[in-house]
């Protein structure tokens, strides 16, 4: 790797101050994405501020009935937390579907939200990429775009956000708490990640210097009817080609509330509010699921090698809705790829 300097922050204010004092510096959590990118010279911060040991690793009840996930809690500690398993099993399943036990042990919740795309060209310094080098062009359009997006893309970038955890979060709709040079603020999860538009260099709406401090989940956890379905090239330890997070509330066979989000298809975890509306009040039948799935992919655009994702997504939505309605996935199980 190239030379850089390093410091370990002692509290949130210290971290924010230290980062502001070093141009181009970066926070580092588990390092599982940032160090990889630094080894490839895709990112070259001259200074790192270690936030992994800040006192932000707790998972604790909120007065409104929700649950606060500390930004530096590891993905493992979050997934296996008793409250998460019991009340937000969708989140447990999505986290455990991602990466490997070793990576989840190191990865932090803040870092998971901030992880960068896995578009091949983003990693390949020899090729143009608007996300890595604004204005240079997009090699994935007209290139190998098997892993790229089909919804909400732009002519500047068709990359996807690779996280599994964030797909479940999109369905559960927490608030992201951040602290920065201008104080604290909260961001609705829906507004945290962004679509590429003309500025694919920005993955999200954080302002320079802001540190994620927690994810605050609302009380509603869809613990009875949920599904996280992840489809990938191998059974484990691979990124999603398409994934679907579903949370339902049911009254008999009628869907009374619904959440639906997709991974692997867009620049942000893709929650579809209109599809959720279409599900509400409807019977949990194959006909309903098919109609909703067709609606979600109606505006999907394939770019050649990722065309298959449109049909894959449609079918995955139908299957995930069925699994959720039937309550097939049980809380706390090790995720075994839909077995």
């Amino acid at each position, binding site marked *: 790797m190239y030379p*850089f300097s390093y*410091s370990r922050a002692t509290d949130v204010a210290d971290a924010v101050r230290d980062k502001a004092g070093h141009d181009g510096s970066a926070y580092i959590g588990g390092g599982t994405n940032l160090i990889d990118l*630094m080894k490839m010279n895709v990112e070259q911060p001259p200074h790192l501020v270690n936030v992994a040991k800040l006192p932000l690793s707790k998972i604790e009840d909120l007065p409104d009935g929700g649950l606060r996930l500390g930004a530096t809690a590891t993905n493992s500690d979050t997934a296996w937390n008793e409250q998460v398993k019991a009340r937000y099993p969708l989140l447990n399943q999505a986290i455990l579907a991602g990466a490997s*036990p*070793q990576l989840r042990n*190191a990865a932090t919740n803040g870092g998971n939200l901030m992880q960068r795309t896995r578009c091949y060209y983003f990693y390949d310094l020899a090729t143009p990429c608007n996300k890595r080098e604004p204005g240079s062009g997009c090699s994935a359009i007209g290139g190998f775009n098997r892993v790229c997006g089909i919804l909400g893309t732009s002519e500047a970038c068709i990359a996807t956000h690779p996280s599994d955890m964030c797909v479940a979060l999109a369905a559960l709709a927490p608030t992201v708490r951040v602290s920065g040079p201008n104080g604290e603020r909260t961001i609705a999860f829906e507004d945290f990640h962004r679509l590429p538009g003309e500025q694919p260099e920005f993955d999200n709406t954080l302002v320079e210097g802001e540190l994620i401090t927690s994810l605050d989940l609302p009380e509603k956890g869809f613990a009875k009817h949920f599904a996280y379905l992840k489809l990938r090239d191998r059974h*484990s330890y691979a990124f999603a080609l398409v994934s679907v997070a579903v949370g339902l509330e049911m009254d008999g066979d009628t869907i009374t509330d619904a959440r639906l989000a997709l991974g692997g298809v867009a620049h942000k975890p893709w929650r579809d509010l209109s599809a959720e509306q279409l599900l509400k009040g409807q019977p949990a039948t194959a006909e309903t699921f098919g109609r909703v799935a067709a609606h979600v992919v109606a505006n999907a655009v394939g770019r050649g090698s990722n065309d298959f994702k449109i049909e894959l997504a449609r079918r995955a939505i139908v299957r995930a809705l069925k699994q959720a309605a039937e309550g097939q996935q049980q809380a706390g199980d*090790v995720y075994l790829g839909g077995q």
Partner: protein
Amino acid sequence: MSQTLTSAPASGGLPTPVSTGPVRLHINGETQTLQLAPWTSLLDALREYAHLTGTKKGCDHGQCGACTVLVNGRRINSCLTLAVMHDDDDITTIEGLGTPENLSPLQQAFVDHDAFQCGYCTPGQICSAQGLLNEGRAHSEAEIKELMSGNLCRCGAYVGILDAVKEVVDKQ
């Protein structure tokens, strides 16, 4: 205040070569203070500075698990973490699990079940399996397979690896 391991940027735009600093690691029960640059991965620190070459470098990008070690009892990939991030942590490598004269139960099971061919992935497999035992969440074969998926074996010794880990899990 932050503890900063660097000198101020030089005038003229070029960064000053960043100095190394002392990093205290408790490796296999022994405290070692190593002079390391911030960009030294934990893997390189173990192999090149602590001279413990049991831990292997496969991909150096978190994709194979060969570099798996235990940090405070939990398995992580030592290639995707910096040594400076582990000041004062307890590190266990394959050398710390057992010795040729006194193999750990997992090491013995790997021998008994012929759980390797070239052996390159083996230290990572065994450290990962030790992490899995410490976690105590894998019981069935399906669970062991899923929770050992972070370790690849190019020789394809998976059948033996699974048998070896299962035997020790069952005795737990």
